[in-house]
């Protein structure tokens, strides 16, 4: 797929997109919202005839020490087989323990033990889907004392051992870096760039935690200035990739979302022009 900017496809916009078919690079859906036979699933299948799709899972729980839920894996596999998306992804996190699903992207300690667990689960996922899957860096609100690797080191090693792709979420980098007192530019530097398959952009909220500001990855506003700036850095360092603008809470009118994607698209084109001039 030509690197272009796309939007997250959300229920309030389904009818409008089906009717007006606005120009956008691609549409991304959350796998877990489209596994049944709902009207939304039917609408997605119709839109698939017009748009490129990305299937973004939020519930595979790749960091679970107990392995993957084979029933859920089967359902996601069926969706992927049906939609033939350009990209498939999930997160570097876990959400299932003891057969209970906690509906959050919970953090992993970055250790050799966790690395082996994620690689094992990723191997199973990529084998079941018969394709490469990309892993997204999560938003973190805490770190573990026992971590021996940084998050970028952990991701790089994951790529090396499993052959997975990287979904680089610039908003998550900004959120994690702020919350864990890291420099987002340092974070960005140390990645295997050729493995990056997609960028994510979104807005975050600033809440109070123990009397201090904490950034919360709520996907509920426009992309912030710091995230746009970091996106510019990523484009210069690693080059253009398909780029998604996500908006999941307080979802705005469709034109607002498309405006954000248009801004990302202009930055992608600028980066391409700059690269051509430099070559």
């Amino acid at each position, binding site marked *: 797929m030509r690197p272009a900017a796309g939007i997250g496809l959300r229920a309030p916009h389904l009818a409008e997109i089906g009717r007006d078919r606005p120009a956008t690079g691609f549409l991304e859906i959350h796998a*877990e*919202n489209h*596994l*049944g*036979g*709902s*009207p939304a699933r*039917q609408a997605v299948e119709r839109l698939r005839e017009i748009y490129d799709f990305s299937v973004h899972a*939020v*519930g*595979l*729980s790749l960091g*679970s*020490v107990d392995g993957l*839920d084979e*029933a*859920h894996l089967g*359902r996601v596999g069926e969706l992927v087989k049906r939609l033939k998306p350009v990209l498939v992804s999930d997160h570097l996190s*876990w*959400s*299932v*323990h*003891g*057969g*209970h*699903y*906690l*509906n*959050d992207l*919970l953090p*992993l*300690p970055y*250790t050799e*033990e*966790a690395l082996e*667990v994620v690689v094992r689960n990723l191997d199973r996922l990529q084998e079941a889907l018969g394709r490469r899957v990309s892993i997204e860096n999560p938003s973190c*609100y*805490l*770190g*573990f*004392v*026992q971590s021996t690797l940084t998050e970028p080191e952990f991701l790089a090693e994951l790529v090396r051992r499993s052959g997975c792709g990287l979904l680089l979420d610039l908003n998550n980098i900004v959120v994690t870096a702020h*919350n*864990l*007192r890291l420099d987002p530019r340092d974070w960005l530097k140390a990645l295997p760039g050729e493995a990056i398959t997609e960028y994510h952009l979104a807005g975050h909220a600033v809440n109070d*935690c*123990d009397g*201090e500001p*904490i950034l*919360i990855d709520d996907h509920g506003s426009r992309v912030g200035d710091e995230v746009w700036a970091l996106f510019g850095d990523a484009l210069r360092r690693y080059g253009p990739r398909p780029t998604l603008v996500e908006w999941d809470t307080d979802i705005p009118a469709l034109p607002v979302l498309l405006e954000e994607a248009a801004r990302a698209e202009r930055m992608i084109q600028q980066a391409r022009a700059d690269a051509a001039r430099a070559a």
Partner: protein
Amino acid sequence: MPLALRDLQAAFAAHVVGGDRADLVAAVVGDSMSAEARLRVYRHHVAHSLGSALAATFATVQALVGDAFFRSMAQGFIGQTLPTQPVLDEYGADFPAFVAGYEPAASLPYLADSARFDWALNVAFHSPVGRRLAAADLARIAAERLPSLSLAVPEGATLIGSRYPLDRIWNASQSGATAGTVDLDDGGADLLVLRRSDDAAFIVLAEGEAAFVAALIDGKSLEAAAEQASHADPSFDLSTVFARLLSLEAFAALQQRAEGEG
């Protein structure tokens, strides 16, 4: 001593649903923002996101009791029943039973039935449309075989009976509904909840119709179902009721094999 990943995940899972775990707190880096405060972000998100998922599925219940009451009731449910898989529109099958036994809602006796109705709408919405039985399908079946025919309701359909007027309660809870009161002594409701092409919907059934549909769901033949319906309502007329339900696409198409035989 670092926690093994298995132990760390067990402690984290317990902590986010409210069981304070000192071993987990000790494993988290704390600075001017304490480990406890950082863990609270996850605890809050798990509670809030699951509460929101239940609010989306049980929209009538939420409209009836208001957001604050609903959230508190939902937390009680989440504390005893977590999802067992990540598809959240499949979470909450046991919520109506929880509502029925929820002491603070005891003065709202219709609330649990409204929750059952919400769940039925949710199940129907996420079910495939499926082909429906049409008059033309029946024309291909020999007349003498009709009485022994078994009919199924569409996939994801639910028959709901309540001593409260659930359909009017539901109507009144819709956004934009004109203000008015629903008389709870106004009689109950029998509803067949089912998937329509672009939404979930329901058919309001008369007493005999409800008995008829219930018998068909039990696997009874048309003839036996009609007999059962006549007991419930002596004025039950099979041909009128059958034509009405057929026109409302209340039955699933016959299985391929039966069609072939016809």
